[in-house]
């Protein structure tokens, strides 16, 4: 572990330094919203924003990603045989990611990096990414990270944790990747680790105290899947849902995807695109039968997956980091906090 102090003047020079070795990402205004973007040559991350509208998951898991290429010209060799795309790029550094979003990668990793199968695209992208988190001094009113095994100062999944001290950052490296990055940026003004810890500790307590929003998850593991599944409240919960993909696309922990072939003439690619369990098409059989044809079953699937199936399958907590994006963005105010509490407290009669 290494702790350094980054003077705000050195902040920008360090970032420019990084850009020769890394593709550097940070929050930036895009249209009317703030999103993580690859920063241009003189561009600095805009750290004034509480959090971006969309999660930074697309840096590792793009919404559209080319998997393979092929050609169908029978006069040339290798026709109809898929070839892996060369998706290799520079290592990525994500500046200013919030602890919740960083933790989300840890949860998603459980899906993409299993003992049976490894998703090479996600894993490669993830492994080449260094996450420089910015502790939340001012969490949003919709943040409930403290009840999801995370928190405004959580270090899980981060390579470096930054804390804004006004005119400087305290940067704590948490992994060798993080250490490397600090070195590359020549952010090397060392800072006393013990002092850092105490600053972080008080900062953490202060920030956590600001989080008023909480969910209860303690009873979830002990309840049977079938009982919660059959609970009577799902119709009401789902009533206002309009089946859009806002919640899933903005969520840092949603990973579902679809695979599609696209061709133009003899050239083709196989891509994968984000998909959403809110869409009836997600599970529609070729025969027309749909196991989750009703809106209620789809809304239930989303919450059951996040709050129950995932929990049961991996025993690593719920599949939610409490970033509050779906709460803020849902056009019809479906609030995962309410639903989580309902599920947690549900007693079948």
């Amino acid at each position, binding site marked *: 572990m290494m702790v350094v102090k980054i003077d705000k003047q050195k902040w920008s020079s360090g970032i420019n330094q990084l850009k020769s070795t890394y593709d550097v990402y940070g929050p930036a205004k895009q*249209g009317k*919203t703030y999103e993580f973007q690859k920063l241009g040559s003189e561009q600095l991350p805009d750290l004034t924003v509480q959090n971006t509208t969309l999660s930074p998951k697309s840096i590792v898991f793009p919404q559209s990603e080319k998997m393979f290429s092929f050609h169908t010209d029978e006069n040339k060799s290798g026709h109809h045989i898929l070839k892996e795309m060369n998706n290799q790029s520079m290592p990525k550094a994500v500046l200013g990611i919030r602890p919740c979003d960083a933790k989300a990668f840890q949860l998603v990793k459980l899906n993409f990096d299993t003992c049976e199968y490894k998703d090479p695209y996600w894993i490669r992208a993830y492994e080449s990414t260094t996450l420089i988190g910015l502790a939340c001094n001012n969490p949003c*009113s919709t943040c409930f990270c403290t009840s999801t095994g995370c928190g405004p100062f959580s270090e899980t999944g981060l390579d470096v944790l930054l804390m804004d001290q006004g005119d400087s950052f305290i940067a704590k490296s948490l992994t060798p990747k993080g250490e490397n990055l600090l070195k590359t940026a020549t952010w090397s003004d060392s800072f006393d680790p013990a002092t850092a810890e105490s600053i972080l500790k008080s900062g953490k307590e202060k920030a956590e105290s600001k989080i008023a929003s909480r969910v209860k998850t303690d009873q979830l593991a002990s309840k049977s899947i079938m009982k919660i599944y059959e609970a009577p409240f799902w119709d009401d919960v789902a009533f*206002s849902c309009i089946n859009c993909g806002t919640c899933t696309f903005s969520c840092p922990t949603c990973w579902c995807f679809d695979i599609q072939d696209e061709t133009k003439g003899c050239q083709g690619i196989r891509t994968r*695109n984000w998909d959403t369990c809110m869409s009836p098409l997600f599970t529609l059989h070729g025969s027309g039968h749909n196991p989750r044809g009703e809106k209620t079953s789809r809304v239930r699937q989303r919450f059951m997956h996040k709050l129950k199936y995932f929990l049961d399958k991996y025993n690593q907590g719920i599949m939610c980091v409490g970033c509050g994006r779906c709460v803020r963005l849902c*056009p019809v105010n479906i609030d995962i906090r*309410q639903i989580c509490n309902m599920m947690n407290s549900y007693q079948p009669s």
Partner: protein
Amino acid sequence: MIEYQKKIQNIAERLLNEKKVDVVLGFKKGTIPMMNQPCLVRVPDETQKLVWDSNCGINLTNYLTNRKERIGIIAKGCDTRNIVTHIVENKIKREQLVIIGVPCTGMIDKAKINGLMVNEIAEVSEHNQEITITDSRGATKTIQKKEVLQSNCSICKYKNPVIYDELVADLVPESKDIDRYEDIRKIESMASSEKFKFFEDMLSTCIRCYACRNACPLCYCPTCFVDESKPQWLGKGMDPIDIRTFHFLRAYHCAGRCTDCGSCERACPMDITVRQFTKKLEKDCVELFGWEAGLTLDKRPPLDHYKTNDPQSFIK
């Protein structure tokens, strides 16, 4: 607004008590500021949870599609116009509905209000036509509601319900001499390269979540064209051409039917001004056919029927 709310609750309670309807479709208080949630009330006791304020922008007609029970629905001017379209297009029967009309003074635009404060908004309240905003640090600001209206509400021509069975308040005066198409004319006057750039920028942040489509009461097809697989002619990825194709064709499907209720724009998580597409077609319908959507149960929209004497001057 509070008077409206009380009246709505009373009407809903009465309708349920008198068994005139099986359910009442309205809003309940949301969990975050400036957000209310569409809900169904089934028993008279629950009518107290119905709310009404300037955050009821979701078009409840969207929830009527293909329902079988008798429904009391709380509806603003634009909503009633969509109810008309729904009835014309066989999505619901007039006899099933008791329309609780709300003379509307406009809905407020979350984004505009968020933009007024540096910190996060903690609470928004309203009194008469004034809005008071409190931020997370306790700072407050009071402004006129008309300054923060949703952009569709500020150019609304039909604030009052066009069809109703109950009315929660006296009709409000309609705005006269509104120029609804200033923005559209601006786009129309662009050179094609400018237009291209304009739409490219406008849609650059679209994430294809389809919230605009799904928030729209007009979009009720069992299978949307973007989801057609035989043939699948529209790519599903983030190709800008596919995204544009989606938005263009969605707008075409709303031609002559869109009431500019603003649900699409309100639903967009990326704050894209998708109404500019539908409004262009609305303008065309007005200019070519003298048609405004959802005003009559007797006629179908201009592009919906065959007439030998349709104007042909545009075919040249």
